[in-house]
């Protein structure tokens, strides 16, 4: 075989491997998609400041809150309701997080009644530093809430850094969420 021929067949081999490489790229791409939950939507608010809103205090109807309550971060912003079973499931863990000193602002979302929501917090414990009352879901609409519970991670500058849909539990807190919170704390100290 001449040198030219060897070069030619090398080139041919490379060309023959192109489909295999493309196939592997496709497999990796599709495998990544397999593990994803299609019902999980990424928030459009990521890295954007919290939207403006006004809301009554859950316990005191004469008291009005605004988005300013979310600008004292880093903090968690939790959307909940008494009709939501998953909110009940995560409640105890939220109490635990609050006991660790993590500030959590609560948004009571389209609940059956103010009384029911107050009862819930009085019996199960109140993990929230501020309790916002949103009977028509107007505040939640500004955040693009599509199902309770949702938990937003808001940094010291009042920007949304992450949205978690579903319950916060010891497992996902340790695996992922704690890191996001600690990162925000670290940035705030700098």
């Amino acid at each position, binding site marked *: 075989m001449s040198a030219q021929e060897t070069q030619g067949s090398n080139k041919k081999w490379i060309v023959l491997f192109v489909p295999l490489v493309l196939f592997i790229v496709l497999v990796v791409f599709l495998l990544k998609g397999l593990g994803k939950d299609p019902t999980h939507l990424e928030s459009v608010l990521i890295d954007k400041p919290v939207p403006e809103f006004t809301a009554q205090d859950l316990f005191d109807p004469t008291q009005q809150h605004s988005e300013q309550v979310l600008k004292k971060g880093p903090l968690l912003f939790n959307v909940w309701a008494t009709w939501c079973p998953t909110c009940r499931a995560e409640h105890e863990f939220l109490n635990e997080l609050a006991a660790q000193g993590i500030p959590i602002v609560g948004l009571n979302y389209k609940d059956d009644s103010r009384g029911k929501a107050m009862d819930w917090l009085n019996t199960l414990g109140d993990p929230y530093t501020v309790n916002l009352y949103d009977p028509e879901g107007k505040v939640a*609409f500004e955040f693009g809430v*599509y199902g309770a519970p949702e938990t937003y991670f808001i940094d010291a500058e009042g920007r949304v850094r992450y949205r978690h849909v579903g319950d916060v539990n010891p497992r996902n807190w340790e695996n992922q969420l704690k890191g996001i919170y600690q990162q925000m704390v670290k940035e705030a100290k700098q």
Partner: protein
Amino acid sequence: MRTLTSTVISALALVATLFSLYAVGQASIREHAFETEAQRELYQTLIQELRCPKCQNQNIADSNAPLSADMRDRTYTMVMEGKSRKQIIDYMVARYGNFVHYRPPFNWYTSILWWGPLLIIVVGVGVAWAMSRKRKQPLALSEEEQERLKQLRKPDHD
């Protein structure tokens, strides 16, 4: 006689159940009053085009989810305020993302959806063309080979 009575009762119960289901279904789709036909049309197209974030594969016109009802109400309010189609869609997209609109915009992320099939066809045709051209080449024998063939064909060779 007894069986007849129970049949009648269960038939009545069925009718009552169906009627109440119908009533619930009707109640979930709140009637909206419009001032002009254009407003009604805009509202109707928008609720067909906007997708319910909660139920994934339904538009907000078909969905019974409370969130869809909220989105219909918001759409209605904005239509009555005189907002344009684009303004209302942008408003929804700003809160729920591109997911909320059944017509995805053309941008960097979606470009592969639009150009992907064309790209595959172009590459496929190109490869087929290159391969067919290659195959034609070795059919002709060189002068040397012609000479050898002649030698081989000579009758005294065997």
